[in-house]
Structure formats: structure tokens, C-alpha cells
């Protein structure tokens, strides 16, 4: 059915279809752009929220105590050993002297502790940061089995809350993006359907002079794709521009919020948005014209 000349004809037809009712096409592209931009913002929002949550989780760490005195060399050795363990990202060492100093500072004015306690009662401390909150319990267990370490502590309750939070955010984000995807689909498909409905008479006449369903359908599908691609690209341009500006603003206003700036991830999202436009346009063209072809 689709010979090379046909394919060429369909593409030319599609382009001229847009040219023949430019206002309708612009309006349709505008709607697709706006919808995809909103969708893209959501995607970016969800990714950033995920980042913030991971950031929070990353701040969760284990505290390991060593009661006995540690020579700096031993401490460094132990620090190295800990940092080589699986799932461990970073280990920071606070000697008992450092801890005592900062403790005294914290309570200065309130309590002249140094006056009453002459000997430092605090242990040496290793703060262990893990790669992700899931492995925390395992790492804690592994460390507590080391003979050098006297005690390992971490906030189990807080961990549970954060894990739960991460799970729920992930699920909610997923569900929301999915819902928004369907909303976008609905709007894009129906927008293209509206432009096709306006050409009901054309389709009817085409059928009367012997055009098959697929012959009529292809140009519309291609037109849908073109509208989708145009809307998708415009949306990406809008998203890129505003995200860069916004991310910079947020990053400078809240240095503590980890804004996603991973080029690969961002490009992935942008490409997804553009592809979404394309696919939705195609579906829109296909669905909308099918109904008319049947009816005419």
C-alpha cells in the first residue's frame, strides 16, 4: 500500500495540511507545548525531590566509639579500614580531645564542667557516612563485629522514617508523573482530534473519490507527529531555559538544597519530553482520524 511515492506524498500532504490551516496548527502546537512543559516541570520536580530526599538520607550516619586512647597512627589506620568497607562512603574521625573541647564550648556559661571534671570522659568517635540508607543496618552490623570498635550507634527510628519517606515520595512521584502523563496524553490527543474533526468534510470527500483508510490516515498521523515534535521541541526549549535560570536561583538562595544538575539525567528528561510529544502526536493523529474514517 505504501510505495515510495506514496510516502513522499504523505509527508508533503502532512506539511501542507499544517500550512492550509496554519492558525489551527499553531494553536494545537501551543497547547501541546504548554502541556508538555508542565509535564516536564513535574518530571524535573520529582527528580529534584528525590535528590533532596537522598541528600537527607545521606546525612544519616553511624557513630562508632572507641573508648581506649588511640594513637593518631592507629586512628588513621582504623579510619582507612572503615572507609574501605562495603557501602561506606566517608569516614570522619573526632578524637576524644576534640570532642571534649567542643563539648566544653557548647556548655560554656551554663556549666563550668572543666571546673568539676578534670579528666576527659568522652570516647574517640568515627562518623561513618553510608552510600545509601538501605545498607545502613548491614554496615552497622559489620562494624560492630570489629574488635577495635567498642560501640556503634545510629538512629534506627529516624532511619525508618526516612526510608518510609523515600519510598512514599518515590511512589507518589511515580503515580503523579503517570497521572500527568495520561493528562498530557488526553490533552494532546484531543487537541489533534479537534483539528482533525474540523476536516471531517475533507475526509468524507476523499473517501468518495476512492481513497482507502490508510491513504487518508497517514498524512494526518504525520501531521500529528509534526505537531507533537514541534510542541515537544518548544517545550524542551522552555524547560531548558527556565530550569537553568531557576536552578541557579534556588542553588544560590538555598545552598543546602541539592539541585539536580547532572547533564545526563537532565538531557534524558528533555529527550523524554520531546519523545513524549512525538508519540502523543502520533497517537493523536491516529486515534482521531480513525473514528472519522469509520464514520464517513
Amino acid at each position, binding site marked *: 500500500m505504501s510505495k515510495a511515492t*506514496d510516502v513522499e506524498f504523505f509527508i508533503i500532504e502532512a506539511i501542507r495540511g499544517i500550512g492550509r490551516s496554519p492558525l489551527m496548527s499553531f494553536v494545537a502546537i501551543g497547547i501541546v507545548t504548554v502541556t508538555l512543559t508542565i509535564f516536564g516541570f513535574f518530571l524535573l520536580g520529582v527528580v529534584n525531590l528525590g535528590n533532596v530526599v537522598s541528600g537527607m538520607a545521606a546525612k544519616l550516619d553511624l557513630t562508632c566509639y572507641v573508648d581506649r586512647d588511640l594513637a593518631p597512627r592507629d586512628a588513621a589506620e582504623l579510619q582507612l579500614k572503615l572507609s574501605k568497607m562495603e557501602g561506606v562512603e566517608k569516614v570522619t574521625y573526632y578524637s576524644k580531645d576534640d570532642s571534649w573541647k567542643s563539648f566544653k564550648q557548647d556548655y560554656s556559661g551554663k556549666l563550668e564542667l572543666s571546673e568539676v571534671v578534670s579528666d576527659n570522659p568522652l570516647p574517640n568517635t568515627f562518623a561513618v557516612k553510608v552510600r545509601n540508607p538501605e545498607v545502613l543496618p548491614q554496615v552497622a552490623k559489620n562494624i560492630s563485629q570489629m574488635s577495635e570498635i567498642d560501640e556503634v550507634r545510629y538512629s534506627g527510628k529516624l532511619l525508618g522514617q526516612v526510608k518510609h519517606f523515600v519510598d512514599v515520595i518515590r511512589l507518589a512521584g511515580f503515580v503523579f508523573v503517570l497521572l500527568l502523563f495520561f493528562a498530557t496524553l488526553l490533552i494532546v490527543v484531543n487537541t489533534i482530534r479537534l483539528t482533525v474533526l474540523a476536516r471531517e468534510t475533507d475526509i468524507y*470527500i476523499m*473517501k*468518495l473519490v476512492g*481513497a482507502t*483508510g490508510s491513504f487518508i490516515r497517514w498524512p494526518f498521523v504525520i501531521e500529528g507527529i509534526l505537531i507533537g515534535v514541534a510542541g515537544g521541541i518548544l517545550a524542551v526549549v522552555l524547560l531548558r531555559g527556565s530550569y537553568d535560570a531557576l536552578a541557579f536561583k534556588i542553588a544560590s538562595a538555598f545552598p543546602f538544597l541539592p539541585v539536580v544538575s547532572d547533564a545526563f539525567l537532565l538531557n534524558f528528561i528533555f529527550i523524554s519530553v520531546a519523545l513524549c510529544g512525538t508519540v502523543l502526536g502520533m497517537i493523536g493523529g491516529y486515534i482521531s482520524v480513525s473514528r472519522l474514517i469509520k464514520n464517513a
Partner: protein
Amino acid sequence: MIELKDVSKVFQNGVEALLNINLHIGREEFVFLVGPSGAGKTTLMKLLYREESPSIGEVIVDRIKVNEIKEEQIPFLRRNIGVVFQDYKLLLRRTVYENVAFALQVTGAPRSQIRRLTMQALELVGMVKRAKSFPNELSGGEKQKTCIARAIVNNPPILLADEPTGNLDPQTSWDIMELLDKINRRKTTVLVSTHNKNIVDGMKKRVVAIEGGRITRDQQLGMYSQQ
């Protein structure tokens, strides 16, 4: 070539457009279909290319039972039947040239052939000068000529012309009739519905008269009116 057996057509609103029609038109015949406004002429033609289906009865075109073919077959039926629609049915967003070429395009004809045949058809109806105009830039008669060009462009074995000269001056009407006659002599079956008394009377062809959905007269070498 064309056969209607006991055909009736009742529309949803209850109008009985055709009642118990029996009609046989042989290969390569030229037939005038006459009758007052609302008699059922257009409806009869619509049955032939399956724009409408009969309520009862059988419609046979070129040995095919038109009322029984599948949806997917309809386009191929229609490519064998050139139709001059009473209301033109031109694609408004396409030029005269594109409207005519479209009827070839759907058949998958190669581009060079499309160009040659389209220009040839436009030549025959005298619309070459207006080839690049859009339908809303045409006069009534020019639209009608475009529609005629589209109907004959792919040289179909059957040609249905529904009031093809309603918006043409007498001279052009005669030219068109001579064109249809020439096409008929090239072995195309031609069915023309018309109100043009002068032409029917002058052409001396078979005349089928229809009134209130019934065939009231079927006469070789007939006139527009009885006698």
C-alpha cells in the same frame, strides 16, 4: 453493467426516496435520468458507489453486488466509477489541479502519469487557466467543470454525472455533453441526471424518468417530457 433489482430506499426520517426500482443499464450505454426535484435521481446514483445502501433490493455494478461488499472494498469500487457530484464536493484547501490529481493519487499512479492525465482532463473541460485557483476563487461553472475533470481523469469504466450542467451556460453545456458522448463512445457507461430539457431533447438517448421514487418512463431515443 448496472443493475438494480427491486430496490427501495427509505431514509431514517421516513422519506421514501426510491420505491421498487428495477433498472438495467448495459455496458457502454448512455442514459439520461430525468425527473422533478426530489424524485430520487441523486439517491439512485449514491446507491451505485455505495454512499448509501438500499433498504431492500440488490444493486449490481460490473458484476459486483455493491450492497454486499466489505467496507475495505469500497474504495476500489469507487475508483471504477467517476462521479460528477451535484454539489461538486471539492476539497476546499486544495487547488483545482490538486483536486483533480487527487483522484489519481489515491490509485497509487506514478507521478509523471498523474501530471499528464490531470492536465489532459483540465484541458478537456477548459480549466487549465484556473489550475492553481482554490475552489472559493472559482465561479459556479468553473467549480462544476473541475468536478467533471476529476470524474473523468482516471478514465473509469462507469461515469455518473449528477446535474453536470446546472451552472453552465448553454454553449458550455453542449460542449460538456459532447465530451460525455465522446467518453461514452470510448466504451464508458454514462448515466447523466439532468433538468436540461434542451439537451435531453437534442441528444436523442435513452431516457429514464423517475418521479416520487418510482420509474415512470424508460424510453430509447427519448425526450425530456413524455412525447
